[in-house]
């Protein structure tokens, strides 16, 4: 069940240029949260901005959560100005988590840019519940946009870096890196990043015959299944709808369900 609470900010730091990590004290939300879920953050008091901002749960602690975010516009800019000790109004956890299935023994996480955000919690959960260590592909436009890389190495994950311009790791797209890792029987892929990246990742997985779970993004108003603003086209009907709600039916979807042709 989602909570709405004023949560103290226990830490807030710039972790890379234009990228911040915020840790909040939120025991109730932390208790319910699972990797892949997200929260809606109220960035400032009053009516500006008008809507909350969705942020994936980066990590789940006993008494709180962290968010890892990139400053892209007004909302995230204002968010980044909040300081430790202030409180932030948070609604969550929301949405469907990543499925964690013991029948797989190879887990590949494919992150594009800030799409890395939900993966620390997922890697934690895979290690904790299955005792397995996922591999991680981290792709970004340039070296500066690579975040999270050290965190995964600390967790013991094998990390594959890729940049569009070759400034760090391989000069390759995330999906190309995935192909090189030869996903086969027993492999499951989790992907989060820009739509074209996830579309390409889905195609690689289809070809390899391995399942792929994608965490989608969409503009959201309510984050809770009500406004239908975040709908994306599906290949099948879910609850008699061909449009699925990223916030409620997702954000994590079996990539087979998404009508990738429209992207």
């Amino acid at each position, binding site marked *: *069940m*989602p909570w*709405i609470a004023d949560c103290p900010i226990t830490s807030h730091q710039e972790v890379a240029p234009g990228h911040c990590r915020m840790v909040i004290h939120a025991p109730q939300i932390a208790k319910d949260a699972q990797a892949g879920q997200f929260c809606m953050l*109220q960035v400032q008091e009053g*009516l*500006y*901005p*008008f*809507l*909350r901002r969705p942020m994936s749960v980066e990590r789940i602690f006993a008494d709180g959560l962290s968010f890892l975010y990139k400053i892209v516009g007004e909302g995230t800019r204002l968010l980044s100005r909040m300081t430790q000790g202030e409180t932030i109004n948070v*609604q969550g956890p929301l949405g469907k988590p990543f499925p964690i299935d013991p029948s797989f023994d190879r887990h590949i996480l494919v992150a594009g840019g800030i799409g890395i955000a939900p993966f620390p919690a997922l890697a934690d959960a895979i290690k904790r519940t299955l005792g397995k260590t996922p591999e991680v592909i981290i792709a970004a436009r340039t070296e500066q946009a690579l975040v999270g890389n050290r965190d995964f190495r600390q967790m013991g994950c094998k990390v594959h870096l890729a940049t569009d311009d070759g400034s760090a790791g391989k000069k390759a797209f995330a999906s190309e890196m995935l192909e090189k890792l030869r996903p086969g029987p027993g492999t499951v892929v989790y992907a989060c990043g820009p739509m074209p990246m996830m579309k390409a990742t889905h195609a690689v997985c289809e070809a390899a015959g391995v399942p792929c779970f994608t965490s989608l993004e*969409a*503009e959201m*108003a*309510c*984050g*809770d*299944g*009500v*406004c*239908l*603003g*975040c*709908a*994306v*086209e599906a290949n099948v009907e879910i*609850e*008699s*709808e*061909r*449009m699925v709600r990223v916030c*409620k039916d997702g954000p994590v979807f079996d990539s087979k369900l998404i009508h990738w042709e*429209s992207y």
Partner: protein
Amino acid sequence: MSINLQVNVGGLVMKNPVTVGSGTFGYGQEYDQYFDVAQLGAVTVKSLSLKPRTGNKPPRLVETPAGMLNAIGLQNVGLDAYLRDKLPFLRQKGCTIIGNIYGHSMEEYMELAKRLEAEQGADAIEANLSCPNVHDARTARGCKLVAQSPERVKEYTQAIKTSTKLPVFIKLTPNVMDIVEPALAAEEGGADGISMINTLLGMGINPETRKPILSNIVGGLSGPAIRPIAVKMVWDVAKYVKIPIIGMGGICNADDAMQFILAGATAVAVGCYSFRQPDAASKVIQGLEEYCIRHEITDINKLIGAMMV
């Protein structure tokens, strides 16, 4: 002090004057996670059409200063799925239900009203004659909605009234020069109440891509941004029509709701502010009661249209 919050909206008895805007509350289930939705004077459901509708392509919404634009395009499960999958929850909770309907023709409105009554799918009908998101924005000029033509409003109202004994509310668009005209037409057609206002036509362009932000180009503007416009229109209509008004447009709290009531609304609806604050409508009910206590008003009906000019 015991306060009467109950109001009668053209035959629909609401235990308090607070409902929600159609399309901003789903079918009640999601927000029941945050507060007991049976607290509401009524739950107004997302517009129902005879067949399911998939709505417009994404992106369908964008935030604007103190508001938002939406071009959902009336995506909804359709009447059958509503009755089968959504209604039982609302009935089991004991909610009073306003069934908002959208038809592609007068006949569809009639059919929707008839079936909602027959299958006890609603306690009152709200006919959405004013959705701005189901016409082709590229060519539509002044967007020819039923609610923009007083003649058609009257005709549609009469037709719906012949199809059901439930109270019928007509939902009007603010995209007119004088909203009193369609309101009077609805009254003449036999409507039991007026719901107002639906969203205002608007659009946004992303300067970097030079493309419209909404796939549908044009959408409907809602939220606190439009509240002063809505209050003015309610005040105008209240001066000229005798049937009750359900007022809406940017209501966030009890003070906002009071503006509509003082301007002449018998009930109010909390719309898209619920997206930000899911229990906003519940807080409005509480705030109205507190207002009455503070002002020593024992019956909220005494405040309807009580603005002192």
